[in-house]
């Protein structure tokens, strides 16, 4: 009988359910979409921040003082310490290896004699990787280089191929080099003096210019070549000076601010197993002994601060969305019950108790809430995909964890929304309601 009453109500008068159902579907869709995006956004934003470039800098520990001005090291090549290129694969073996998005070694060779067809001049040569495959000890290969750590560098023409005798000229250098430099031309670089001593003759290495780079910093005034050639010119095979690492990190909190040595074993484990910039640099120092790993403070700090601000803002907005969804569902449920006061009057007139009336209405609302919530979840997942791809360029995957949360929320607000008018209806005398007063 009870089931029939409820069933008939849906079959006989579906129009009345439309408003509540629409509010439920829409409200829960918005709740699902905002929650999905809020859960996803920390990771996405952290990835976006990597467009700022590297946030860790690795240098040799026992080094002489670098003479770096505007990004170029002016130390002579036979001074100071170097790091080994062959160790770099180990970076992908640390605990947070998946958070290492990329790394690029640099070897600056200042003051190299160069000549083109008729002209000659001295240039700063920078050896680096554009897209280089690094062998990782576990047998795989990891592709990394400037394209990951310095994404804002633009090129007219194309970048040098790894291992080919090609070079890219900085924008400013291309203009000021005697006679100018254009794409397709060949530039000869002279090997270092130590090499000449060794072989008893000066050697010139030819490089084909493949592009003109615009970097916005000192590299605009230099010549970029594949790392292996810079090593050959400076006679430092397999070595480099500086390594820029771009790592996904978690904003620093109270635990990250403490000195790792003062932590208790459990705290230490928690610190080690969180992708803080301090724990990642500690892990890098462990696999690359003899190095100094510093967080590039302006990048790392700004990133942490802005990320935590954006996520607080987003959670507040999500909360507002949830409140708005609850209000909308509550208001429509209340409207439906008010609209059906006549029915309540009839039921009560023919002897239904308040409890029975309430349970019939609440069952109806609950069924609507479950159906509407489920439909809303599906719609919300679609909405989150659209939102994810329009804001971050890749869709946010649906999270099934949210389904019970959304269903529960839908049921709760629909029940609260209809309970209030039902309580009021309980006090009414059936007679005046039936008379239409």
């Amino acid at each position, binding site marked *: 009988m009870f089931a029939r009453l409820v069933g008939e109500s849906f079959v006989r008068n579906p129009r009345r359910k439309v408003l509540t159902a629409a509010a439920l579907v829409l409200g829960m869709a918005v709740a699902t979409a905002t929650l999905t995006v809020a859960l996803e956004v920390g990771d996405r934003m952290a990835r976006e921040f990597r467009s700022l470039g590297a946030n860790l800098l690795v240098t040799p520990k026992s080094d002489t003082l670098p003479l770096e001005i*505007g990004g170029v090291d002016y130390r002579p090549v036979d001074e100071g310490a170097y790091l080994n290129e062959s160790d770099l694969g180990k970076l992908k073996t640390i605990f947070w290896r998946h958070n290492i998005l990329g790394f690029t070694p640099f070897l600056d060779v200042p003051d190299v004699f160069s000549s083109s067809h008729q002209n000659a001049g001295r240039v700063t040569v920078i050896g680096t990787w554009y897209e280089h495959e690094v062998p990782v000890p576990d047998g795989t290969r990891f592709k990394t280089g400037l394209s990951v750590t310095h994404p804002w560098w633009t090129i007219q023409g194309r970048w040098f191929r790894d291992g080919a005798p090609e070079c890219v000229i900085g924008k400013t250098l291309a203009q000021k080099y005697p006679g100018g430099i254009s794409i397709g031309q060949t530039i000869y670089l002279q090997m270092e003096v130590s090499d000449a001593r060794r072989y008893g003759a000066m050697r010139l290495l030819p490089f084909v210019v493949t592009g003109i780079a615009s970097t916005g910093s000192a590299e605009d005034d230099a010549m970029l070549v594949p790392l292996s050639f810079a090593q050959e010119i400076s006679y430092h095979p397999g070595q480099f000076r500086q390594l820029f690492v771009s790592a996904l990190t978690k904003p620093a909190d109270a635990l990250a601010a403490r000195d790792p040595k003062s932590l208790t074993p459990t705290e230490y484990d928690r610190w080690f197993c969180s992708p803080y910039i301090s724990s990642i640099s500690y892990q890098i120092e462990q696999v690359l002994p003899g190095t100094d790993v510093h967080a590039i403070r*302006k990048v790392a700090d*700004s990133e942490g601060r802005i990320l935590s601000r954006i996520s607080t803002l987003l959670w507040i907005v999500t909360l507002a969305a949830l409140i708005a969804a609850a209000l909308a569902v509550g208001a429509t449920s209340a409207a439906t019950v008010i609209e059906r006061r006549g029915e309540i009057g009839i039921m009560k007139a023919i002897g239904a108790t308040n409890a029975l009336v309430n349970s019939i209405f609440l069952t109806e609302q609950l069924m609507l809430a479950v159906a509407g919530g489920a439909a809303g979840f599906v719609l919300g997942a679609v909405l989150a995909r659209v939102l994810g791809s329009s804001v971050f360029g890749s869709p946010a995957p649906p999270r099934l964890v949210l389904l019970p949360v959304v269903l529960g929320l839908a049921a709760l607000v629909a029940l609260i929304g209809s309970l209030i008018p039902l309580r009021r209806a309980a006090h009414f005398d059936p007679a005046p309601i039936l008379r239409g007063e």
Partner: protein
Amino acid sequence: MFGRIVWKMLRGGKGRIFVALLAVTSGAAVISALLNVQFDMQHRLAEEFRTLGANIVIAPASGGEASGLGGPSASTGATVPILLNETAIGSALEANRSPDVVASAPFLFAIAHVEQTPVVLAGTWADQIPRLNPTWKLDGQWIDSRTDESLCLVGRTVARQFQLSPGSNVTLNYIGRTARLHVAGIIDSGTAEDDQVFVNLPVVQGLIGTTNGVGLWQLSVSGTSANIGAYAARLAAALPAASVRPIREVTEAEGNLLHRTRLLIASMVALILVLTALCVLATMAALAMERREDVGLMKALGGSIARIVSLFLAEVSVLGAAGGLIGCIIGILLAQWMGQRVFDTSIAPRWEIFPLTIAMMVVVALAGALPLRLLGKVKPAVILRGE
């Protein structure tokens, strides 16, 4: 008469009106708070990004940032340092003053020697250093004058190399000239600045023998990447002899992130707007339904449908406007709280939100009362019988 009926209707069903008003008010509060934050967010986030440091560099037109470099590469004759004129740039910057310029400082680099070891010496306006680089950590004290010639700040690596601490003295040699300096503080930047010694500009100018030359000029400008680009273009027009360029890694990433964050929040705010409108709509529709009997009675008494409907619409607009106004006031307070919570500063109330929100609430409330028009077509007898 019209006004009196509307007034009586509002006074009449106190409970129902209160519920409707509550719905409109809470909707308006949420909308106005979010709109306020949305309007102010770009500005606040742009300020946050200033922790990234300088984003515009003025350098000599030909030659890179290394200009002004004495030492190894100059000695080999590779680059003859080209210097900028300090007074020319200073007056151009003065002529293009903008409240968006957070910090501005000239730089002149030289390679000096400390006990035979070469070290990069950076001459600048020392009082601007903390503003230009808010993330640098300091052990000791900043130098708060730009004319003082006895103090210096040293990078972490330099301090470690020469065992310097705040309060100790260091002597710099530059081809025969010397400068004795007192270490005011030790800088931790995580970048190449850890290997440098910072002094006021006159010290370096005195060492390398120039009176008015600077190597480059750094500016930290707040705003969107378009604003920063426009400011750089204005400076470039004023300084034809120099190259003015935005530091791309900073401005581009900044622009991108600002854009994405704004897009994200804006789309969520739009969704919330739709929901709130729906909530107000439902409440108003319920209110209209309850008025069915009144409509029937008025029609039976001979009122024209247009007049009856306009009566109800007037009632609903008053509700919408009143709810919108109260909601806006609450919303602006809410936005202040959100500002404190998210950005640690209060958010400037935007007054244009008032008309916007109130208009929106009135429109939504009117839309909610639309079912009344359909009811107008029903025969009064049927409604009065309660069917």
